[in-house]
């Protein structure tokens, strides 16, 4: 009797999950501010949709674990999978596994290496990373020019060296400086802070101790920019004489901008990417056509327009 009851309840449980659209989500890591906004964007959006449930897993920045999670999603028969890849060069195996099972797959935020050869039921939703560092550096260049600089010394704070966004944004900085318009800028040193505020603080103080004159600090993310600002303020540097740029437009960064310390940041619509990826996954699951590359634009944030972004991140 007890057993049949259990079987029956189990069967009804199976039936409900089968009727709803279940999307498996594998995030590269949970303890990253930006990815958290993206993840919350997904769950909040899914909450507004009837019969759509999300199962969100943390890959803990581990490539192998992420592939296991995807295989587990496939085995449990989800309607679609959304992946925020740990390592963008390790996506081929994920695409193959999902394609073999006929389950739609959407990459979000980080561009997979096989983006050009994705099967029809797979897509990529992100912002074009080539824009972020470019927007940031062009604005720093503009401010320096406006201040009448004919040569400018730049410190660059990079994110995690193995991260595609960090590599790309750093390349953007170099590319902008290579243009004749901004060639008066000269990078005197570039080091990593691993995206961390604390490490950026330490790095900046070490730079300050060399006594080399500089005009701007261009960071791969806001947390690093804020760390540099804190170090400069602690050493009594006049923040009006230094241009500081970051990327992400986090709450902390907007507060630093309001205080007049941070000059430039770039807004990446994390929640928009999260929502876009769920939309694409649902459409693919229902057999509808989707653009294979969906770009959510980056936006430049300066003191002039910062008010618009106060509630976005």
């Amino acid at each position, binding site marked *: 009797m007890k057993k049949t009851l259990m079987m029956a309840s189990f069967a009804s449980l199976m039936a409900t999950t089968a009727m709803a659209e279940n999307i498996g989500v594998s995030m590269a890591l949970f303890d990253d501010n930006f990815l958290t906004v993206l993840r919350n964007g997904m769950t909040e959006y899914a909450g507004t949709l009837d019969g759509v449930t999300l199962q969100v897993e*943390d890959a803990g920045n581990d490539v192998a674990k992420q592939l296991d999670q995807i295989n587990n999603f496939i085995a449990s028969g989800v309607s679609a999978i959304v992946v925020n890849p740990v390592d963008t060069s390790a996506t081929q195996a994920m695409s193959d596994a999902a394609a073999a099972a006929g389950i739609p797959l959407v990459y979000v935020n980080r561009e997979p290496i096989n983006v050009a050869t994705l099967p029809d039921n797979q897509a990529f939703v992100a912002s074009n990373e080539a824009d972020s560092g470019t927007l940031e550096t062009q604005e720093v260049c503009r401010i320096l020019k406006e201040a009448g600089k004919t040569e400018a010394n730049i410190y660059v704070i990079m994110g995690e060296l193995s991260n595609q966004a960090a590599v790309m944004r750093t390349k953007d900085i170099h590319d902008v400086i290579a243009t004749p318009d901004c060639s008066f800028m000269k990078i005197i040193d570039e080091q990593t802070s691993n995206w961390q505020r604390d490490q950026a603080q330490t790095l900046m103080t070490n730079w300050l101790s060399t006594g080399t004159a500089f005009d701007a600090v261009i960071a791969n993310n806001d947390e690093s920019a804020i760390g540099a600002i804190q170090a400069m303020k602690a050493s009594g540097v006049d923040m009006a004489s230094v241009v500081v740029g970051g990327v992400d437009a986090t709450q902390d960064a907007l507060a630093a901008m309001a205080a007049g310390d941070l000059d430039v940041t770039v807004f990446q619509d994390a929640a928009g990417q999260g929502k876009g990826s769920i939309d694409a996954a649902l459409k693919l699951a229902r057999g509808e056509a989707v653009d294979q590359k969906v770009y959510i634009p980056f936006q430049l944030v300066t003191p002039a327009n910062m008010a618009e972004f106060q509630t976005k991140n």
Partner: protein
Amino acid sequence: MTGITAAGLTGASAHRKRPAELNVLLGLIAIIAVFELLGWLLVGQSFLLNKQRLMIIILQVSIVGIISVGVTQVIITGGIDLSSGSVVGATAMIAMSFAQASTGPAPVYAGLTDLPVLVPVAVGLGMGALAGVVNGSLIAYTKIPPFIATLGMMVAARGISKWYTNGKPVSFPTDSYAMIGKGIMPVVIFALIALLFHLALKYTLYGKHTYAIGSNTEAARISGIKVERHIVLVYAIAGLLAGLAAIVVSSKNLTAQAGMGMMYELDAIAMAVIGGVSLSGGRGSIIGTVLGALIFGVIISGFTFLRIDAYYQEMIKGVIIVVAVVADVARQRKRSRS
């Protein structure tokens, strides 16, 4: 755990010709000399004669240094603590959520802003000590290896730090909380903590028991030491110091983040090991660990000073850790032969 009972009970360096700390100090001086020389050759300025650089050398290792004081004592008992970095993350998030100012956007507890600074400090120290008590009790009473017990805590505490706010950072503390880690405060706190536990290890019964357990647990038990209770105490202190480090780092950065303290446990262990603390237990000192921390600081600053490519820095750091231990082992073998 190795059977040097006599040395353990009478203090680690009782009958040693040249104390291990002196070797570490010589190593520190040698590394500084290399950077000084390369500084004049490549950068054209002094490495050491720079007030700001001297400051950052110590400041940048103070927070992990606070942890390493606790880790040193754990290692002396023959144990290990892998959880301190994650405990820093979890404790920083929780303490900071009780330290937020009403002026910041979206506090975690909207009704609990502008609390007196004592509240987040007590919460932080309490949470850290609690994690330590759990570690210590698991090790002392269930007899599972310290590596496993603290590995479990490392994973679980990181989970707590992410779960607490769903990964969102906690920022905008009150001015009084921000004072704790401001300026040279981390250095002052590190120095006081190091001094306190240097005295405790060297001159009190607490210290004698700690060395005795690490040298030979059974002998310690037979001589009447309450081994289990003492192990819980040592891990509780290590947890408490991780909690203190969490308060200082979140105050210094004006933010707590779920990923905070990542790898701190390994840096803290490396500082102790470079400072001559033996992983087999029973041997080592706070002075050694402080010197180990300074070597770390000198290396980080020296690399940036010489503008060494970011990719090479970690490789060189790893080599230095291994070389320090190899030198220590070689020296011990020489001593046991003579």
